[in-house]
């Protein structure tokens, strides 16, 4: 095995931690007191979007335990008294599992299909969180704000998703295992 230079090590580390770091950033951004109309409504659902998009691209760099931790962090930061802690974690883990199980239908397909997949999965996420919050606090929570959130995040998905998807395009790990390392610059694999 060849000894790597410092830059190569940094590069590898950067690649490995990038999805987690982006997710953490969006979890924190959820709390930013941004008062842009509509956009600020959608902030709490953006971490779910990030989980969906990175599960498509590189699920191996977004392992389940990390999602669990991020979901719990999000619930701790966002939730008021009595809100369930861990429901976002459950949602994240289920989104990842659903994406990984259905990669056949979601990866390498036209963007519209991915959008449709996101519509379905995020609707499931919103219903899950709404249901558990209502159950946990035992109050009838008005579902309209949650639905508005959902609609906004579905609408802004095409703006954010391609930007997040760039993480895949430059990733040497996408090259199939056997041919990795032998490929020359510019060479493509079938």
């Amino acid at each position, binding site marked *: 095995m060849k000894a790597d230079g410092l830059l190569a090590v940094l590069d590898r580390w950067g690649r490995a931690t990038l999805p987690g770091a982006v997710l953490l950033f969006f979890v924190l951004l959820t709390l930013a007191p941004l008062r842009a109309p509509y956009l600020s409504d959608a902030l709490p659902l953006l971490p779910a979007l990030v989980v969906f998009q990175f599960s498509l691209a590189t699920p191996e760099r977004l392992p389940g335990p990390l999602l669990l931790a991020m979901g719990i962090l999000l619930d701790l930061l966002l939730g008021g008294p009595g809100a369930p802690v861990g429901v976002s974690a459950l949602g994240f883990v289920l989104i990842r599992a659903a994406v990984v199980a259905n990669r056949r239908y979601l990866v390498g397909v036209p963007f519209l299909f991915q959008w449709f997949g996101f519509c379905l999965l995020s609707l499931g996420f919103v219903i899950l969180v709404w249901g558990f919050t209502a159950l946990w606090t035992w109050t009838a929570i008005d579902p309209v*704000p949650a639905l508005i959130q959902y609609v906004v995040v579905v609408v802004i998905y095409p703006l954010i998703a391609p930007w997040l998807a760039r993480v895949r395009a430059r990733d040497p790990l996408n090259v199939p295992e056997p041919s990795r390392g032998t490929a020359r610059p510019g060479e493509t694999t079938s």
Partner: protein
Amino acid sequence: MAIRDEFEVAAGQVRAAVQRFALGLLVIAAFGAMLVGKADTVLVEHARVLALDLASPVLEAIARPVAVANRTIADLKEFASLREENARLREENARLLAWQTAARRLENENEGLRGLANFREGPEASFITARIVGDSVSAYVRGALLNVGRRVGVAPGQAVVTGEGLAGRIAEVGDNSSRVLFVTDVNSRLPVLIERTRERAILAGDNSSQLRLTLLQSLQGVQRGDRIITSGHGGSFPVGIPVGEVVGTGEGHVRVRPFADFSRLEFVRVVDYGVTGLVSGPQGTPSTPSGVAGQRVR
């Protein structure tokens, strides 16, 4: 060699089993977290406070750019109605000047009468000015994060006010951060008075932009436009902080619009009232650039 192979086979089996049940384990862990949260609220409270304290420096760092962005958005909105706004403000200014004269006269008169009657007021309140560094607003919560905490004397239950009126109360306190629960949150219950009739009532939030008034006595006598103020019952709230005004009365419920404009909060004041207000807190110090101060205000 054979032993090693067997070991590797066994390890591979274990790995495969863990991978197969990984989803199940993660789901169980998530449910476990929820159950622990339900069973041990103190533990969750500590975890929340810890997360808050860790996140607040990051949030404070991005608060300023976010504030600039917000101001730009607000400016763009206001440009459209600059002329009307100006006319409205001029009119309001004239009206308020008349009120100021009246208030000065009444204040003097009130002071004189209090002197005559030997009236003793409750404990004086002091204010802690805080910047809002984070929103905790989602479909389920109405609140905000402040950049002040236990260090400067913030305690759970204290009132949080804006220039217009009451915003909420402190729910959780970390060392250098705290969480406000707005009056509009579904968990908020506030003992209030109807200013005109002095009738007591409870003001409850339901996560919408308006509040619900639950009267302890009768529904009669409440009119549109009645001002609702805090009654001071039940602890650390001062009496008479304006909360909102009645905008609609219907069968069995009264809707109240809060005075505080939650869509453009940037700074708030935490009212340090009662025993804590008399004992602790740096008093009379000039305000620091970050806006954190413990100025005593009458």
